[in-house]
């Protein structure tokens, strides 16, 4: 009943001795009877885990389709993260929390099993190890079924991650405003469009800090003058490499006014550690006021320059 024709064939291949096989069959039958209870437990546990993963997966899909801008509380691992201030940061935290929950269960199960087996099956006088090769499907199921469960978990992680990726990097929402960001060894430059919204009229405003209005979709057009840099704002959950020779557009929408740090997160040379700037998120009114004052200051400066050097004009 327990030893199929297939596994008999396998055994014959391995041992090639008739007398040995008969003995093994009897012995194994008795042992399988003994272990049937624990085996049933394993299968039940597997199906329970399978069901749990599937249910978790479904709830994730349901909650994520309800609202694209998902605001969830810090559940598990994201409690250690800096507070999120972007519209999509919650989705990324969500994915990380989901992965944490799944891998924590797997880790505890696997590590627990190792410790349990190590204690339970330590060498004792007079007790021999059981000859189990795990070379037939019946026994192999003990590792293949959990591996299938891993696949289910993988797919649920991929599904959740795929949605978050699509929001953050995949399809960019139409911008309320665009700012050019230039990285160079070892500084940031932020170029704001002229009053008519264009970059090519020569009336741009270049600053050392990034001011953005809260609640607006901002496109940052990332460029580099020399090496690869990386635009990273921990609170936004946004990280994007800046490759020389390319214009890479990233987007974010800040939800909370405040001052945050922009770090370079890709090794860019000896003073890489000092390449930083500030992201100032303020209310749209404050932002407009700031932009106006900076523009008039810049106009004055250029006016002074043209007066001082009339021969160049």
């Amino acid at each position: 009943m327990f030893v199929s024709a297939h596994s008999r064939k396998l055994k014959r291949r391995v041992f090639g001795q008739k007398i040995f096989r008969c003995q093994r069959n009897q012995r194994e039958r008795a042992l399988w009877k003994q272990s049937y209870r624990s085996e049933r437990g394993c299968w039940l546990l597997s199906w329970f885990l399978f069901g749990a993963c599937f249910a978790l997966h479904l709830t994730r899909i349901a909650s994520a389709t309800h609202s694209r801008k998902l605001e969830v509380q810090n559940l598990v691992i994201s409690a250690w993260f800096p507070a999120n201030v972007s519209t999509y940061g919650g989705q990324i935290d969500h994915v990380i929390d989901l992965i944490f929950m799944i891998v924590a269960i797997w880790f505890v199960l696997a590590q627990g099993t190792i410790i349990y087996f190590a204690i339970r099956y330590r060498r004792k006088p007079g007790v021999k190890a059981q000859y189990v090769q795990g070379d037939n499907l019946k026994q192999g199921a003990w590792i293949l079924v959990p591996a299938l469960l891993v696949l289910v978990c993988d797919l649920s992680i991929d599904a959740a991650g795929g949605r978050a990726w699509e929001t953050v990097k995949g399809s960019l929402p139409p911008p309320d405003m665009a700012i050019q960001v230039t990285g160079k060894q070892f500084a940031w430059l932020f170029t704001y469009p002229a009053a008519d919204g264009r970059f090519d009229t020569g009336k741009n405003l270049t600053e050392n800090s990034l001011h953005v209005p809260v609640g607006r979709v901002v496109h940052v057009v990332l460029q580099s003058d020399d090496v690869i840099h990386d635009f990273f704002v921990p609170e936004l959950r946004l990280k994007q490499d800046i490759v020389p020779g390319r214009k890479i557009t990233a987007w974010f929408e800040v939800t909370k006014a405040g001052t945050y740090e922009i770090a370079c997160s890709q090794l860019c040379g000896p003073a890489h550690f000092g390449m930083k700037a500030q992201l100032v998120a303020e209310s749209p009114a404050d932002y407009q006021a700031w932009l106006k004052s900076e523009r008039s200051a810049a106009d004055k400066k250029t006016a002074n320059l043209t007066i001082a050097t009339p021969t160049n004009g």
Partner: protein
Amino acid sequence: MNGAMEAQALPQTTTVVEEPHHGAGFLRSYVFSTDHKVIGKQYLAVGLLMSLIGGFMAYLIRVQLAWPGKPLLGWGFIPPASYLALVTMHGTIMVFFVAMPILLGAFGNFLIPLMIGAKDMAFPRLNMLSIWTLVVASTLLLGSLFLPDGAASAGWTGYPPLSAVPSYTGNYWGINLWLLALALEFSSFLMGGINFLTTAINLRAPGMTLWRMPLLVWLEITASALFLLSVGPLVGGSIMLLLDRIVGTSFYNPAHGGDPLLWQHLFWFFGHPEVYVIALPAIGIMMEILPVFARKPIFGYRTIVYSTIIAGFLSLVVWAHHMFVSGMDPRLATPFSIMTIVISIPFAVMIFAMIATLWRASISFTVPMLFTLAALSSFLIGGVTGIFLGSQAADIYLHDSYFVVAHFHYTLFPLVFMGGFAGVYYWFPKMFGRKLNPSLGLVHCLMTFVFFNLTFIPLFFAGFGGAPRRIYFPFGYDFLKPLQHYQVLATYGAILLLIGQLPFVLNFFLSLWRGAPAEANPWQANTLEWTIASPPHHGNFEHTPHVVRGPYDYSVPGMAQDWITQDKPVAQTSAAV
């Protein structure tokens, strides 16, 4: 007349074949030897020596991160450029000059011929060339540390344009030598890999079918095949980078039509399989040791072999998960993420198989077994944290942070060092004919396991806080300040971890000269290397063994003893039934 000459020549040739090294001088026997066992030990020596240097660099890096700007004990003040050079060299040394020489070079060379019942490698002279190429490569790399403009400081990944234009980093010959050393290292392991594959395919003893090969041999040759398949693009890539630097071509220079991302694709097309090139031999060592001390067969031998091959193939198509935020087309992220996360399945199968091997076993906790269990437990964390980084969305936040640093140290340290130590403690009697002291070994194992976790668990939390890696001055950003205590904790862990290696150094040299002499089969193991004297003499086997069974027949029912070597027929013990 021709016939007479042949008759005269024949006896001479046969004596040369029978006694390949007897009567050879010191230089031919121990330095320029073609004996695979001597070459294996030479690889081990190179790997262990380089690991001392790499470990000392880790100490310098960690102290700078914990107490920045303070002069370091045994070194002095570290300027930013030197810090980056240390980081670059630590990575390069540990991956290419420690992990590969120990896991592939030492264990592969020493064990493959012994385990398959061969007299030597298929190409002994090529083997000698490979170790001496590695020595030249190591010398070049270490020499670059003493250059006036500093060693390579563009990170071990060497992304251009930073690495392509000397003025960006400030080192000219540093990166050139670094590239040359890498190219030589690759050619060394290409020669080694060809040797491994040819030996394992052609020189197996009669009866040693592919399905009777010990798993270590399977995993070593899968790793070699992976290396052969993946290294070509990077060798080409390195030459292009060298040309960019020296001749002024613009393969990676966007101003003249080059593309910086090309290097990243070439590097990671090699770089990801490289992880498996290191991981598989280490897992192979663990899989050799587990059955011996569990006294039962490895669970699912064929399943493991198939999973290994599947994992190998998958590893060739996942490289872009290192590049999710690099600026490549965002539509590529999800397919690569799926492939990456799917790789967890073959690895899960291997890990579950190792765990299932412990079921109803009779486990004796010797030092190799403790190291194996420690490696398995720690590697679990390395494996599951890989899922975070394989997920495209989670990687947006965690990419290039200390989470990555902690993750790859959790995969590589358990495999390279814990797995490697397990192998050294297990095969030391066979290599040197003497036993290592188990008490010192126990102390070493406990200290390594505890302090390794103390070092790298805090770094996960630094990564959760957003700390980017390769930051010289940890107070540079305000958001790093609350994370500083993790760095300090990790530094204490790292210093203790290094101190924890002293028992091993002591044990190694004491046992080498004063250890208890080892018998042929001290662990009562089944594989062929234990059927001959410790250490084996030149030519390994007096009579070519005739293999009649698989490598893991422990505790076969109905037999008096719980082990039986691969070349012993079963009939003599089970005749009573």
